[in-house]
Structure formats: structure tokens, C-alpha cells
């Protein structure tokens, strides 16, 4: 197991280096002098000279890259042009908000997606299965930002049940925090639930026709036990790994969801940064989410080995 994981980590390193080259390369797409972009409104020659030194802008591009990457490794991703805060500090500030949204969304996704997938596989070919599939495919086809707008229209404007926007930290008022986050995480969660349902269904279908399930039935076990203990346990491996891999979808969905519900998280940060031409923040977020995704991949690999006893000895 360890050599396998060590191998995965070794492969991840060049990938991270490549990502950092891409992210660095982004700033070369900008027209004009990168120095003036980095400086924003600042035109003081001394400050310009300092920035030119710091980012080695007179040096060849590989030297510029290594200076930038060296800073990034030390946790220095530059400074936001708008707030003058270090990018890492800015991101650390927004991270808990998005983490809360992500956790609640994943909960929604698991609570809806997995049971729906199990039932639909167990009742394959019946009306229940058909309806579940149609709902899942619709879930994949509905733009989740539109679903968000429609829910605001219905739940907040018409029925006035839940707040339409904003964010309350859980430390301040726990229940209000959950209430505010309920709609956004439902919107984001349903999008993930559709993917999860389809994968659970196909994993369960594969398992339900396996010999050990037939044996369990032949032993006279109750259907409940056969399905939930013998079948689900074995189908769970691909589902757990998939959940780790939903990270990308989750981040992308968070960008739109935070925009609609005006939640001050990671996603809102990147969109605001784009409009403020705060390029260091955009670069920082791309780099951090990409590295985060690679870690989730490694986690998925590790979980796969841990959950699958056949791989443990290798």
C-alpha cells in the first residue's frame, strides 16, 4: 500500500509544477507592461522599482518564474491590489465560509444521491427507477444558478421562509447560520446528488448480480441485510472515491452559488477579483484550488486502498 501511495505522490509533484507554470503563464496573456498591472493605481517610481526588483521583471522569464514560484512556496502569493492584503490572508479569511457551504452541500448530496441510487438499482426497470433517472438527468441539465434564482423567487420572495442572501458565521448565531446556508447548499447539493445517484446506481447494479449477494440471499438473510450490508458495502468503494473527486464540481458550483446568494466566500472572491483586475488573487485561487484538487485525488487513491482489502497487502 505504501509504495503505491508514494508513487502517486511522486507523480503529483510534476503535475503541481506544471500547474504553477500555467498559472504563472496566465499573467503573460495580459496585454501591456505586467509591472503596471501589478502596481494598479500606484505610479510612484520607487514603488515601481521595488516591484520590478521583487518580481525580477527585467530578467528572463525562467528567472521570473522561479522568483514567483519561490515566493509561492513560502506562502507569498502576492498582494491584492484592491485591499492591499496578502492574497493568502485574503483566501484564509474566505475559506471557512466556502467550507461550510461545501460541507452542507456534500451532506445534501449524500443524503439524496446515495439512497436514490440504491433504490433505483434495486428496482431496476421499474417506474421508480425510471423516475429517479429522469430526475437525475434533469438535475444534471438544470443550470444550478437558475435553480438558485427560482428558489429565491419561491422561498424568499413568495413565501418569505428563508433569507435570500448573506452570510452569518456559525460562531455568531448557529441556527441563523444554518438557515441562511440552507438554500445555497441545497442548490449546490442537488447538482452533486445527480452525479452521485448515477454512480451509486451503476456500482450497485454491478454488485447486486455478484455471487456473494446470491449466496447471502440463499442463506435466507432478509433483503434489507442483503442490500444494505452485503451489496452496499462493496459498492461503496467507488462511491467514496467519487465523492472525493466531486471536489472540482463543488468548487465550480460554489462560484456561481455564492454569486447568486451573495455569500462572501472563495467563489465570490475570485469573481470580484476578475472584475477588479486583481490578477494576483485570481492566480492565487486557481493555484490553490488546483493543488487542493490534486490532494483530493491522492485522498481518493488512499481511500480506495484502505476500503479495498484486496489492495491492502500489495
Amino acid at each position, binding site marked *: 500500500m505504501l509504495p503505491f501511495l508514494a508513487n502517486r505522490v511522486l507523480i503529483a509533484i*510534476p503535475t503541481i509544477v506544471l*500547474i504553477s507554470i500555467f498559472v504563472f503563464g496566465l499573467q503573460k*496573456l*495580459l496585454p501591456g507592461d505586467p509591472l503596471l498591472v501589478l502596481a494598479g493605481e500606484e505610479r510612484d517610481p520607487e514603488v515601481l522599482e521595488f516591484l520590478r526588483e521583487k518580481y525580477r521583471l527585467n530578467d528572463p522569464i525562467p528567472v521570473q518564474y522561479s522568483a514567483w514560484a519561490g515566493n509561492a512556496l513560502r506562502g507569498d502569493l502576492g498582494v491584492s491590489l484592491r485591499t492591499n492584503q496578502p492574497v493568502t490572508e485574503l483566501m484564509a479569511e474566505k475559506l471557512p465560509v466556502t467550507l461550510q457551504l461545501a460541507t452542507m452541500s456534500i451532506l445534501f448530496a449524500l443524503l439524496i444521491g446515495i439512497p436514490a441510487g440504491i433504490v433505483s438499482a434495486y428496482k431496476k426497470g421499474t417506474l421508480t427507477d425510471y423516475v429517479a433517472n429522469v430526475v437525475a*438527468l434533469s438535475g444534471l441539465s438544470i*443550470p444550478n444558478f437558475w435553480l438558485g*434564482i427560482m428558489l429565491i423567487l419561491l422561498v424568499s420572495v413568495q413565501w418569505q421562509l428563508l433569507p435570500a442572501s448573506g452570510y452569518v458565521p456559525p460562531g455568531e448565531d448557529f441556527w441563523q447560520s444554518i438557515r441562511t446556508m440552507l438554500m445555497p447548499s441545497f442548490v449546490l447539493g442537488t447538482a452533486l446528488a445527480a452525479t452521485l445517484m448515477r454512480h451509486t446506481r451503476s456500482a450497485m447494479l454491478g454488485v447486486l448480480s455478484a455471487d456473494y449477494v446470491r449466496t447471502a440471499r440463499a442463506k435466507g438473510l432478509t433483503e434489507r441485510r442483503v442490500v444494505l450490508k452485503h451489496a452496499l458495502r462493496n459498492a461503496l468503494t467507488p462511491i467514496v472515491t467519487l465523492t472525493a473527486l466531486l471536489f472540482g464540481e463543488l468548487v465550480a458550483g460554489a462560484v456561481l452559488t455564492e454569486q447568486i446568494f451573495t455569500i462572501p466566500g472563495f467563489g465570490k472572491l*475570485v469573481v470580484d477579483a476578475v472584475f477588479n483586475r486583481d490578477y494576483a488573487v485570481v492566480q492565487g485561487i486557481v493555484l490553490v484550488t488546483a493543488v487542493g484538487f490534486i490532494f483530493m485525488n491522492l485522498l481518493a487513491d488512499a481511500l480506495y486502498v484502505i476500503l479495498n482489502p484486496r489492495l491492502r497487502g500489495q
Partner: protein
Amino acid sequence: MVATTTAPPVDPVLAAKPENRVWKKFRGHRSAVLGGILVVFFVLIAIAAPILPIPDPADTDWGAVRKAPSWAHPMGTDDIGRDVLSRMIWGAQASLLAGVVSVGIAVLAGVPLGIVAGYFGGWTDAIISRCTEAVLAAPFLILAIALAAFLGPSLTNAMIAIGISATPIFIRLTRGQVINVKSEDYVDSARAIGLPTPKILTRYILPNVMPPILVQATLTVATAIIAEASLSFLGLGQQPPAPSWGSMLNTAKNFLNQAPWMALWPGISIFLVVLGFNLLGDGLRDALDPREH
């Protein structure tokens, strides 16, 4: 989903020529046909936009601001008195164009790279695969947002950004398919009779890896349309006053109280056209899969 219970001694579907077999299986797939109809409907509307008897999508009428649907404006008017139906129809053009062009970019860039990586293996494969993984690691929308931000917001740049973000999917898929196909006997024999490599790649490898790529392309058009709508919704795609479903939703969210219909039509249309491509892709997968009958 459509269960056929009769089992004749000679399956007419299997007996037919391959092209006919695919077509027959596809037609027997009710949801795929529905998907096809949805796609054709929106394509026709998008093509016919210039000749349909509708007002100009940019014409403002300050006397009819945020009017509910009526005979004069079947889908109502927007915040500056433009006809929503007309903007919907022209928006279909932007959406489909974005979907098809960005997937075109991804296929044209991804398939050759995937073929090269899969066929040659070794260092070429290692380099292409690591680059693919690196691009795949950045979430689709984040990458598209970043590219749109650095390239500047416009529909063209949104299409390029979506195309680049979708390329790794096709590199990966093609590479895997090529690895399966290249050890087949007919490829060995092509090599044995001394055909030059480019000819083997285009004549023997490419046609045999095409079916799954076609399926993936159809499904990716659906993703790309949502991605374009998302970027336009964020203000990073189609720029005003040119109509796009995403930017229409962006405006609509400010008038939910006064003019809810503004938010209704673009969302329903995105849903239907994306559903169409998804159903079509699922149907094509079943029809083109030689294992499943």
C-alpha cells in the same frame, strides 16, 4: 429503458448492416429521439433567427418596460423594454455557437494529442499525460474564469477558455481508446505491409476510436452550453447589448419581484437544450456500443 420481450431466432437489429443497426437502435431509444428533437428544434430556431418575423433583439421601447407576456410580446419585455422572445431566439444562436465551437476546439486539439500520446507511448505520452493532468486539476469553471479574466471578457474568449478547459477530457479519452486499438491485428498488418505511420494513424486508428469521441463530444456540448451560460451570467461571456441566455438571467435576478418572467424563459431554454444534448449523447452511447444489444 425500453424493454423488448420478444426474442426472435434472428435479431433483425443484429442482422442489419452496421450503420443501419446503429440507426435502428437509436430510433428504438425513445429518450434519445426526444433529445434529438430538442436539439434540432433549437438549431432550427438559431439558424432561422435572421428571417423570423421578430423585433430587433436590441430595440428598446421605453413605453413598454418590464411588461408581462402578451400578444405583442409573447414572452414579455425586459428592464429596458426589449422583446424577450426575440432576445431568446438570438440567444439560442449564441448558446449553440458557444457549445459547438468550444467543443470543436477541444476535439481538434485533444484528439490528435491523444492519438500521439496513445500510439507512441514512452516520453511523448508521459509529457502529454502530465500536462493533461495539470489542466484537469484546475476545476473547469475556475480555469475558464481565469482565462476569460486574463484574455478579457467576450463571447469568443469564453469559447476559447471553455475549449481549452475541455481539451484534457478528449486527450484522455482518445489516448485510452488508441491504446486499446493499437494492438489489434489490423493495425499490426497495416504496419507489416509497411504503411507510413501518419497513414496508419488517420486510416486505421482514427476511424476506430471515433465512436466514443462522438458520444463524449455530444455530452460535452451540453457541459459547454452550461459553462457559457455561467460565464455570461458572471459577466465574462457575451457582452451587452448582444443577447445571451446567461446574461439575461444575470439581469433578471435584479427584477425577480417586478418581472419574474425575465428569469423564467432563459432558464427553461438552457435546461431544455442541455437536456437534449445529454439525452442524445446517452442514446448515441447505447446505439454505438457494440457489446450491448
